[in-house]
């Protein structure tokens, strides 16, 4: 039953994740949106002027080369925004303070540039906003997610201990994962661990490792972590794609999953049905797919910054990459726990490719019935019910 | 160390020459070979991984013969001495689960000749008397009667007389100065005597001057299968002596894989001389006659027929195209099995396995792989099996697993399709 509880936790985490993901994209643009006059907003706030304009540097160069200008492009270019008047300049009598001037600039006051090749904005604050978001929000709070999950797992283990196979092992096994499944899984798992460790070092090395190790060691370690992270990134994407393809079958949500949720993953004392994968496992799979692909995309952008020119995207990528990472690490911790020390018989499936019949009946009854052709009889929840092995054998 | 273990290890290591040493050194434990071995394929039991069958020899070699062993010894890195229990535990792997088919060699990235190495291990086991009962009985028969099935010269003569009557041809016995001396395997003499008749018909047509010796008619060499060097030498010597006495120029090895290897390739090395005659496999001879136009084929066999390549003939004997050329002439509807030719799958009973009752069940299991290949051919009617031993295994296997295919020898097929 507690196994289902664990799977429920997985689910909860997945919800948190999707929440994080729907919020995250809003956070960063919000910074940008607050600063009036960012390029995207300019046309809305400032009416376009139809006065002829001198061209950009590029236009000038094209003209010099005797090439024809592209009138389309010239028209499309946003007109310079109407200048926001600056507060009166600092006079000899000191009517205005410097602080006021800077504040105005920061909040987006425009200068009157001599040409409109520059966008007219004197101070670009997105970088600072990003830095503050990263330092004061992400770095401060995000690492607590995996740490918290780890704590919960320890607590859970101490309270509940290992989930045993009810009725013990039957000694008979059913094949569950083929060799290629196992290779795909462990390939991804080993690269994931490397990526997670090096990534965490990059993310929280400064607050956590630096005080412990001192500048010299820390800088060496981080240089190594960065190289390793960059190097294994593409391998991770390869492993991810292989695993996505390999495990897609059987991971689409089914009717039984609704029942599984309605029965609280088995927490309510009733048996929760599951096919080859239960709802928790399927959720984990789709987290791997979507967050994993998100990590891949943002990671590629960070590793090959020339792919996109817009600064905003890069800032967004670092934020999303960090958020996705902590979420994935947190959920993976749960996955590792339940797949190894947390539950008897679970590791067999990935190590040997085979699982015990009793394990299969208990945790994946529908799948068990499908492969063995036997009926799965459930003990009804109490640990003292006789092992269902005998009943199953008679059928 | 017990004396038995000592004998096994010493003999095995004596047999380990530079080639075997290279094999033992080079294995990278990649496990590819498992996928080639019919015993593993049929059972999926990892212990049938070919390289695993060599473990005791590997350990002994590392401890007693490998270069740099002294340095490793100083660091305490040598494997422990191989114990007698361990050797006995491996006995069934060495004797029951290797037909010495050599298929694993093909897939091995290092090209290890597992079959040849198993043979060396059997030398050790046999020297210490650790031999499966079935093979021991066969050996006793050989020592007594000269044939593993106890076929005496009298029995042979009776079978020959019957074949003479059936074919109406004279079969020359002990003919001095004949050009060819034909050998048979006990299995053929007792189980498929029509082979003798087939020889008579083909040779009569091709005008070949041949004979059968009453002193040396048995071609199979149990000594080689068990790994009993002295016995193997004795059996080869018997043939060589008879051939010398009769003054033949060619000795024909029968449709039997191991026999061919034993006389053709191992024989001269056992006796330490190059023979004064040519050893030729019956398939080679038939192919030669075919090329010379001395085998005129009349009506072809119209059934859908496939060919089983006996490992010792095609893979370890090098006769790949010969049987196919003969079959193309003799059959109208010849089809290949999947993976035929050098990568063919063993029948499961070679290398003394079929003479070893303990291995019966495993052998049948292994044959199921072969049978699956037969079943995959649509409308198959018959399978040509140019090896008396394989033929027996096929018949047993088809009996046990069900399967309605006729099993025929190549010489009989050729004899049957000769122009009248």
């Amino acid at each position, binding site marked *: 039953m507690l196994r289902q509880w664990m799977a429920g936790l997985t689910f909860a985490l997945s919800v948190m994740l999707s929440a994080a993901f729907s919020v995250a994209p809003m956070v960063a643009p919000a910074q940008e949106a607050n600063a009036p006059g960012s390029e995207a907003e300019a046309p809305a706030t400032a009416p376009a002027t139809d006065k002829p304009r001198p061209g950009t540097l590029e236009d000038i160069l094209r003209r010099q080369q005797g090439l024809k200008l592209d009138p389309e492009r010239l028209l499309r270019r946003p007109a310079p925004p109407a200048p926001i008047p600056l507060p009166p300049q600092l006079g000899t009598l000191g009517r205005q303070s410097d602080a006021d001037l800077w504040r105005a600039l920061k909040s987006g006051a425009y200068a009157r540039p001599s040409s409109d090749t520059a966008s007219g904005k004197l101070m670009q604050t997105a970088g600072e906003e990003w830095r503050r978001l990263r330092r004061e929000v992400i770095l401060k709070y995000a690492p607590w997610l995996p740490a918290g999950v780890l704590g919960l797992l320890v607590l859970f283990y101490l309270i509940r201990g290992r989930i045993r196979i009810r009725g013990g092992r039957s000694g008979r096994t059913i094949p569950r994962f083929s060799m290629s499944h196992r290779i795909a899984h462990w390939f991804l798992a080993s690269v994931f661990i490397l990526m997670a460790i090096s990534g965490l070092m990059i993310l929280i090395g400064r607050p956590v490792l630096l005080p412990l190790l001192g500048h010299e060691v820390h800088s060496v370690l981080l240089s190594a972590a960065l190289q390793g992270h960059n190097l294994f990134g593409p391998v991770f994407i390869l492993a991810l794609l292989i695993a996505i393809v390999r495990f897609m079958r059987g991971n689409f949500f089914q009717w039984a999953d609704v029942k599984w949720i309605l029965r609280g993953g088995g927490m309510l004392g009733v048996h929760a049905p599951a096919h080859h994968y239960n709802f928790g496992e399927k959720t984990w799979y789709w987290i791997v797919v979507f967050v994993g692909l998100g990590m891949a995309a943002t990671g590629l952008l960070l590793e090959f910054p020339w792919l996109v020119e817009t600064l905003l995207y890069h800032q967004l990528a670092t934020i999303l990459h960090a958020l996705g990472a902590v979420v994935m690490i947190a959920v993976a911790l749960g996955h590792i726990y339940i797949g190894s020390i947390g539950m008897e018989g679970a590791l067999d499936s990935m190590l040997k490719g085979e699982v015990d019949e009793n394990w299969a009946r208990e945790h994946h009854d529908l799948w068990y019935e499908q492969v063995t052709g036997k009926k799965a009889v459930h003990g009804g929840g109490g640990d003292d019910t006789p092992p269902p092995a005998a009943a199953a054998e008679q059928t | 160390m017990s004396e038995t273990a000592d004998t096994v290890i010493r003999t095995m290591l004596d047999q380990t020459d530079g080639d075997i040493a290279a094999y033992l050194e080079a*294995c990278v434990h990649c496990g590819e070979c498992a996928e080639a071995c019919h015993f593993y394929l049929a059972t999926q039991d990892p212990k049938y991984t070919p390289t695993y069958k060599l473990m005791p020899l590997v350990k002994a070699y590392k401890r007693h013969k490998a270069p740099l062993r002294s340095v490793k010894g100083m660091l305490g890195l040598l494997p422990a001495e191989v114990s007698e229990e361990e050797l006995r535990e491996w006995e069934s792997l060495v004797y029951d689960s290797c037909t010495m088919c050599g298929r694993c060699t093909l897939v091995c990235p290092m090209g290890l000749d597992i079959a040849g190495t198993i043979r060396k291990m059997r030398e050790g086991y046999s020297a210490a008397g650790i031999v499966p009962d079935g093979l021991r009985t066969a050996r006793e028969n050989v020592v007594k009667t000269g044939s593993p099935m106890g076929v005496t010269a009298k029995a042979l003569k009776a079978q020959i007389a019957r074949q003479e009557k059936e074919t109406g041809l004279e079969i020359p016995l002990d003919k001095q100065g004949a050009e060819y001396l034909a050998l048979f395997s006990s299995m053929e003499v007792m189980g498929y005597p029509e082979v003798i008749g087939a020889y008579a018909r083909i040779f009569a047509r091709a005008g070949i001057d041949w004979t059968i010796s009453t002193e040396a008619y048995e071609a199979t060499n149990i000594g080689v299968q068990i790994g009993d060097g002295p016995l193997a030498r004795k059996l080869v010597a018997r043939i060589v002596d008879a051939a010398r006495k009769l003054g033949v120029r060619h000795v024909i090895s029968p449709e039997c894989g191991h026999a061919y290897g034993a006389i053709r390739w191992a024989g001269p090395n056992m006796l330490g001389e190059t023979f004064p005659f040519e050893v030729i496999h019956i398939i080679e001879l038939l192919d030669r006659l075919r090329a010379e136009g001395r085998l005129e084929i009349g009506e072809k066999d119209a059934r859908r027929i496939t060919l089983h390549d006996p490992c010792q003939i095609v893979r370890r004997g090098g006769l790949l195209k010969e049987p196919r050329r003969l079959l193309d002439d003799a059959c109208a509807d010849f089809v290949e099995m999947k993976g035929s030719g*050098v990568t063919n799958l063993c029948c499961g009973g070679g290398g003394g396995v079929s003479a070893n009752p303990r291995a019966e069940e495993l052998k049948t299991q292994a044959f199921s792989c072969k049978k699956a290949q037969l079943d995959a051919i649509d409308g198959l009617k018959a399978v040509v099996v140019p090896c008396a031993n394989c033929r027996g295994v096929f018949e047993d296997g088809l009996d046990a697993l069900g399967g309605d295919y006729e099993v025929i020898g190549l010489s009989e097929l050729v004899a049957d399709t000769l122009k009248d």
Partner: protein
Amino acid sequence: MGLVEFIEGPAFWFALAVFVAGALWRFVGIIRIGHKPDLAPPKGSAGWGWIRGNLRHFFPRGLFAERTWMHVLGGYAFHLGLFAVMFFAAPHVDFIRERLIGVGWPALPRWGFIIAAEIAFAGLIVLWVRRFSDPVMRLISDWDDHVGSWLTFLVMLTGCLALERAHVSLRALHMGLVELWLIYFPFSRLMHAFTFMLSRGATGASYGRKGMTL
């Protein structure tokens, strides 16, 4: 002499000496066991067979590769990647030219190195995963297999971590592991990098004599 100088100086020469002497000793030792001349009249050439056997076993046979393609791919990826990285990484070429033999050859560009290294890592991980998750592999593997894999992995990993060439200590770490690897090499299964010739050759020669063109 500091630790770094020691690792990059005397320790390296010592390791190299052990490697060369050990590997030679073992290789020659195997050949010197020798074998008796074969008296059976040959049907073909043993010499050609030796060469053919060596070449033939570089390529898998389709029939079997069907079943183990993942492993076969992993094997190729690792070995080819490692070969490229070992002999064509720019720092390695420099090292060989400046400290070993005095001549160099064109090195891989940085992106080439990265691709080769990625391929090698992917392959090695696949091989290693197979080693512990396949029942056959678990049965036949011993500690030598695992030590060899890990040592090679660490050598490759530290090499990549030192790629920036900004920290002497990272380079020294890589060097130190390389030295361990070199010393371990002649005593271990890593020797297959040389012994493969002998075993393939032995089989090839015997097949060649029998007139087989496999």
